[in-house]
């Protein structure tokens, strides 16, 4: 008997009597609030700037004057290196800044969903010293139920909710931003009007 069979058999014999699975939760009726999302990102140690798409490059240049190695997967911002030209993610060890697009923002906790395609290299958003995520305000949802209803986690090989800069409180419960991953997180919120055609 293999361990697989042994475990499955033990579970089959010993599991409790069937208990029903609750139905999927009905979607929240409350629409997401932009102000609520901004307050939440601030509370978890992130920064927010509302800006039109055409001003993105300018904002990045102003915010990160000393960043030398910059990668971007957002068409409006041109980096100093191209992620797709890099074969080995170890070559991103010195990455100062990564600018990428987020799929979805969650008001209740400030988390933003990022899929593998947007990262190009899965390691990039974790290696970068600073991370900037561009997110359309139209892509905000109120809570995690709405978020999981709007994405398919298996659509890409890897995807993550990112909520603020990396942090730790492992030394005497003192909060320190910048544990292993990015030291700062900037969310660039693009107002709804800006994405309408003709503006």
């Amino acid at each position, binding site marked *: 008997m*293999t*361990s*697989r069979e042994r*475990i*499955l058999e*033990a*579970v*089959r014999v*010993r*599991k*409790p*009597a*069937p*208990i029903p*699975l*609750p139905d*999927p*939760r009905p979607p929240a009726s409350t629409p997401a609030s932009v102000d609520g999302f901004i307050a939440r990102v601030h*509370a*978890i140690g992130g920064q927010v700037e509302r800006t039109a798409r055409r001003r993105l490059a300018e904002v990045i240049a102003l915010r990160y004057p000393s960043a030398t190695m910059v990668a971007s997967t957002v068409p409006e911002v041109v980096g100093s290196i191209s992620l797709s030209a890099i074969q080995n*993610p*170890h070559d991103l*060890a010195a990455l100062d800044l990564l600018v990428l697009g987020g799929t979805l923002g969650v008001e*209740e*906790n*400030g*988390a933003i969903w990022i899929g593998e395609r947007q990262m190009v*290299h*899965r*390691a990039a958003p*974790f*290696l970068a010293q600073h991370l900037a995520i561009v997110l359309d305000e139209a892509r905000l949802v109120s*809570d*995690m*139920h709405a978020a*999981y*209803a709007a994405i*398919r*986690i*298996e659509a890409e*090989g*890897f995807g*993550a*909710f990112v*909520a*603020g800069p*990396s*942090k*730790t*409180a*492992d*030394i*005497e*419960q*003192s909060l*320190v931003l*910048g*544990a*292993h*991953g990015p030291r700062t997180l900037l969310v660039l919120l693009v107002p709804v009007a800006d994405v309408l055609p003709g503006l």
Partner: protein
Amino acid sequence: MNGHPSAAARFLADEARADWHDAALWFVREKRDRAAEAVPDWEALRDRASQIKEHTLSHLDDYLEQFERQAARNGIVVHWAHDATEHNRIVLDLLRARGVRRLVKSKSMLTEECHLNPHLEHAGVEVVDTDLGERIVQMRDEPPSHIVMPAIHLKKEDIGALFHEKLGTEAGASDPQYLTEAARRHLRSRFLAAEAALTGVNFGVAETGSVVVCTNEGNADLGVHLAPLHIASMGIEKLVPRAEDLAVFTRLLARSATGQPVTVYTSHFTRPRPGAELHVVLVDNGRSEQLGRSDFWRSLKCIRCGACLNTCPVYRRSGGHSYGTTLSGPIGAILSPGQDLLRHRSLPFASTLCGSCTDVCPVKIDIHEQLYRWRQVVAAAGHVTVGKRWAMKVGGWVLRRPRRLRWAGAWGRRLLRLAPAGLLRRLPWGRRRDWPEPATSTFQEWYRNRRDSR
């Protein structure tokens, strides 16, 4: 008496430090309260989480097979480990076959339970725990003292001295920001040098064959996205049926653990990185046995948030190491006796049965009731001390008949006037207590007098 009481006595010998530990954990408990109160449907969410977990456990064989099928379709290699030994062998075989000598690990209570690190180190593999708290306790060669805050028993001065010795930080420096920066630089070099990365698993999703890992530091991601091999060790009870169920658990986990609205990173792995390998090791190690215990199977709902530790008056005042188990606190005290009753016989008694653990548990495990039931199992197996056994026998005999109780009460009051304070101090329970003031009359006498005088 050995076990928890004597270990707790050692912890309490440094009273100032014990007070500090108590306050540090209560602070986390208060953060949890604020986070929970900010969610309007918190109680409904707990109910839902409990139902989803109970449903999954009652169909666990089906979900395990579904998970395996989906994961395999995604290119994940699934392994099955009956016990800790087999888990460790599978991991070592994977590393050996690829010539791996440097492994980075993110937090995994399961690999602590399996004692994986010493096994790999014996075989010549360098194992680096990368969660800051875990790295600290690894450098000190001790186990984590808390599920989510492994180094909560240490003060920043302890860590400053440790880093001075191990990482060459300035002598006497204890600023958390400075020490974290030193650890960041140290561990970056290990991430970049690792040939394999091992993580735990917070949730496995049966319908998609994905595994979800939650961290604040980003250490799990840095490890696995750089190394060519990712091994994820997962207890068989970690499954949820559907991706949407993750919404329920991600809303509860961090709020219950640290009071954050969500962990910084909630990473979903469905397929290996192009050119890399992803292996999931499903581990039983006593879980299927626990599933068959009608009084205790609900303990398998646990999502390892640590809320029951932070709120527990006994944990806060005795520290995680006093439990002598991988999982300490109330949840450790109901999961460990099932693995080795004799060894962990003192743990169900490391509780006041106040029920605070049950109140904060995000998946509504009836923790204090299970503690009470484990006490009965321990007593029935004859694992209580002679003194406790006789005290319970005498107590039971006295309480069984009202006349005996009245008689014992009368004698008790008389003896109490004569009892020297030193006698009480000799009993473990009475060490910090005084005898109560003897009542002048019993309630019954008082009531009778009152009635007669009307």
